[in-house]
């Protein structure tokens, strides 16, 4: 192993035969390189924590201010779809984790299968999200010129939701703030879905590379770091599910 002093340039030449081709020369060892790459990925994920953190904070502040509007808005969400999507994402995190293990233990077919399952479950999640979005569009609950207060001024006009929650009508000025709830709903779930779409695209690329044996020859950093990204997106959804779907059911 070459040491990290400048004088070792001569010995570095002969060291070429000893170290794997993916080891960059500014690292002492493959392990140091892997640690540095993992650490950098975590720094990126921490910027993502701050990004989604701002959205979560905005949600909490406005929920405190316009509590009745946020409760009625939340009653429009379908807990069954939300829970199904949570389970889908948890399974996709599991298949991704299995993919990382397959890469680390050099199982090419297992890796391709794990990545393909993760890819598929990601698409299932987006499909369910599409069904939910379509319902919001049909009810005119998308913020904008066509936003409708009907479900909140006259809850009985929305029989499915009324049957479950028996909401009282909101005063017009409070009902207006349900639009804020849906703005945050679409912003948060939309940013989450965008992360899913980016992840699915990268998964597609990885499946092609994995079939060629790219990640099962010792260099697994890309798979490991993508795994971190995918699990992070899963964690965001765990909180979105609790905050958007669950916590307002009984108020």
């Amino acid at each position: 192993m070459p040491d990290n002093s400048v004088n070792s340039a001569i010995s570095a030449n002969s060291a070429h035969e000893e170290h794997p081709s993916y080891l960059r020369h500014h690292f002492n060892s493959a392990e140091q390189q892997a640690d540095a790459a993992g650490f950098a990925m975590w720094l990126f994920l921490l910027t993502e924590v701050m990004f989604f953190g701002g959205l979560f904070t905005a949600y909490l502040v406005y929920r405190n201010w316009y509590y009745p509007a946020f409760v009625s808005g939340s009653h429009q969400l379908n807990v069954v779809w939300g829970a199904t999507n949570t389970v889908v994402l948890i399974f996709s995190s599991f298949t991704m984790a299995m993919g990382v293990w397959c890469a680390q233990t050099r199982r090419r077919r297992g890796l391709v299968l794990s990545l393909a399952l993760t890819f598929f479950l990601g698409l299932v999640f987006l499909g369910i999200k599409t069904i939910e979005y379509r319902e919001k569009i049909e009810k005119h609950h998308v913020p904008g010129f066509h936003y409708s207060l009907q479900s909140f001024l006259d809850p009985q006009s929305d029989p499915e939701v009324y049957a479950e929650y028996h909401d009282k009508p909101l005063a017009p000025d409070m009902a207006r703030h349900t639009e804020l709830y849906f703005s945050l709903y679409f912003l948060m779930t939309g940013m989450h879905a965008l992360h899913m779409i980016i992840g699915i695209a990268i998964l597609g690329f990885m499946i092609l590379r994995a079939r060629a044996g790219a990640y099962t020859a010792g260099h697994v950093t890309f798979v490991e770091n993508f795994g971190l990204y995918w699990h992070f997106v899963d964690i965001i959804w765990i909180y979105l599910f609790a905050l958007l779907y669950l916590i307002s059911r009984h108020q």
Partner: protein
Amino acid sequence: MSEHSEHAHHIVGPKVYVIILFALLIGTGLTVWASFLELGLWNPVIALAIATTKAVLVVLFFMHVWYSTKLTKLSIFAGIFMFLVLISMTLTDYISRAWGSW
């Protein structure tokens, strides 16, 4: 080939992943079940406690932080701490803003 350096890296096996998978599924079931109960103030507390437990399991085992370097652990802790500062300072401000004005 570089067996020596790769194997110094801890590899988490399928057994751990399966256990965590079931823990997460049970957590999801519990949180949905709890949301159907009438618990008043405790509904959001329980939902967030279960969500946080699930997130911690994902971070520690799916994301291998349990086995990672002290540098990574400290950085993650710092990031989460800053997030908690963001939440607590903002909510402290907004909740106490109108105090004494009525």
